[in-house]
C-alpha cells in the first residue's frame, strides 16, 4: 500500500470512528430519571437519578445506599468519596445494573443537593 493511500484511508477510517463515537456517545450522556421510573429496560444505561437518601451503609470496598422518591432504588458507590446522611437530597450519575435480581445504580459521581436539616423533601 502506498504512503498516500495509507494516509487517505487512515483519515477516512478515523472519520468513521468519530462518527461511530458520536453515535454511541448518546449512551454516555446520562438520562434524567426518578427512582420510581426505573425499569429493567434501563439496565446498562447511564442515568442521572435524584432523590432522598433512604438508608446508608459504609462498607469495606463500597458504600451502599438507597435513593428514594415514592419508591427506593439501591445504589452502590465504589469510590466511597462521600458519606451520606439519611434524608439528604442527592443527585447521582451512574449505570443501571441488575444485582441479585434487583435493579441497582452503580454510582460514578454524586452531588449532595441539600442536607437533612435544610431539605424541603
Amino acid at each position: 500500500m502506498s504512503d498516500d493511500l495509507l494516509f487517505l484511508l487512515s483519515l477516512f477510517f478515523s472519520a468513521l470512528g468519530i462518527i461511530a463515537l458520536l453515535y454511541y456517545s448518546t449512551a454516555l450522556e446520562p438520562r434524567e430519571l426518578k427512582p420510581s421510573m426505573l425499569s429493567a429496560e434501563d439496565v446498562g444505561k447511564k442515568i442521572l437519578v435524584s432523590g432522598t437518601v433512604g438508608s446508608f451503609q459504609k462498607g469495606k470496598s463500597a458504600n451502599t445506599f438507597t435513593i428514594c422518591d415514592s419508591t427506593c432504588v439501591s445504589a452502590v458507590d465504589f469510590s466511597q468519596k462521600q458519606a451520606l446522611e439519611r434524608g439528604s437530597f442527592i443527585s447521582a450519575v451512574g449505570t443501571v445494573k441488575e444485582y441479585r435480581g434487583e435493579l441497582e445504580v452503580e454510582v460514578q459521581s454524586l452531588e449532595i443537593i441539600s442536607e437533612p436539616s435544610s431539605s424541603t423533601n
Partner: protein
Amino acid sequence: MALAEFLSGFIAGLAGLVAFVHTNFILQIAAYALPEGFSKPVFASALSFSKLVFELIPSIFFAVPATSMGIALLPSQKLILEGKGILALKTALGAFFQSGVYCVILVMPVIVLLPVANQAIAPVSGFALMALVSLAVFAKQRPIESAFAFGLSGALGIALFSNAIREPLFPLLSGLLGVPALLFALDEGQVPRQEEEEAKPTINKLVFAGTVAGAFSSLLPAMTPAFLIALIFLFFESESPTAVLQASSATLLSKTFFDFVAFYAIGKTRSGAVAFSGQELAFLPQLAAALAAGLAALFLAIALMLLLYRRFAAMKVFANKHAKLALLVFFAIASIAANGPIGLLVLGASASVGIAIALLGVNKSMTMGALLLPSIAYYFHAA
C-alpha cells in the same frame, strides 16, 4: 461531550513521544485532573491507541524501549543501523492499520468465543502458560543456552517484583534491551542517513496471526506482546526484521484493543487503561464508544505520523557516540527519578543480564523471562 474526551485522550497520547512516560502515570494524573462526568473509557482508549502510535518514534529512532512495547520493536534498531529507520516506521504503521481493520472484523466473534474459551482454560491456565513458555524456549536453535538465558532474566524479574519498587518496568526494560543495544553499537560509527523508502507489502498471515494472538491473550496470565510474538514465530519461521515488526505491531495493537473487550466479555482487567475505565466497560454501548474512540485515535495518529515522520528521521539522535552516551545517562537519570537510587541498581543489574544474554548469542526474546517467570511463580504460589 464524547469529542472532548476523545480529543483530550488523543492529545495526552502525545506523551508517547517521551518514551519513559508510562500510560499508567498519565492515567494517575488524569484521575485527578478530569472533570466529573467525563467518560473514562473513551479518554483511556483514545490515549492508549494514540500513545501506541507515537511511541514508535522514540522506540525506532532513539532506541529507547517504550515500556508498553518491550522487545516488540527491537528489529527496528537493526534496520536503523542500515539506514532503514523510515522503512521500520512505515512497516509498523502499515501493520497497525491492517490489524486495526482486522480487530473491527473480529470483535463480535471474539465477544462470543472468549467466555467459552475462558471457561475451558481457566482451571489449567497456569499449566497452559508454562507449556507455552517451554515450547517457546525449547523450540529455539540453542535450547540449553536459551533456557539458561530465560532463567537468568526470570531470576532478575522475581528478585525485582518481590521488592516494593515503584516503577520497575522502565529500568528493567531499558537495562535488558536499551543499554546492551547502545553499548554494542557504541563504536559502530555514524549511523547512515535514513533513506526514504516505501513500506514492504504486509504479510497478511503474520498480521492476522498477531491480531488473533492479541485477541485471545487475555485468557492466560502474563501474555505480553513479546511472548505472543515468540509463539507466532514458532509457527511462521520467517524472521526478517520487517516480518518481526509486522507481527509484533499487529499483536501490540490487537492486545490493546482486546484488553478492553476482555473486560466486557470475561471481566478480566489486563491493562492499566482498562482498570482506569472501571465498571463502565461492562456495558456494551460504553464499550462500543470506547472502541470507536480508540480506533479513531489510532487512524488519526497514523495519518499524523505519515505527515511528520521526516522531521523525526532527520534528528539523528541515535547517530553518534556522544548521542549514545547521552542516552545511557538519560536512562540512569530517568531510573533514579522514577525510583530513587535503587532505580540505578535495577538498571545496572538488568543491563548486566541483558549483556550476558546478548553475549550468549540467543534470541533476545529470552529476556522476557524477567516478566514471564515472576507471573508463573505468582500463579502457582497464589494457587
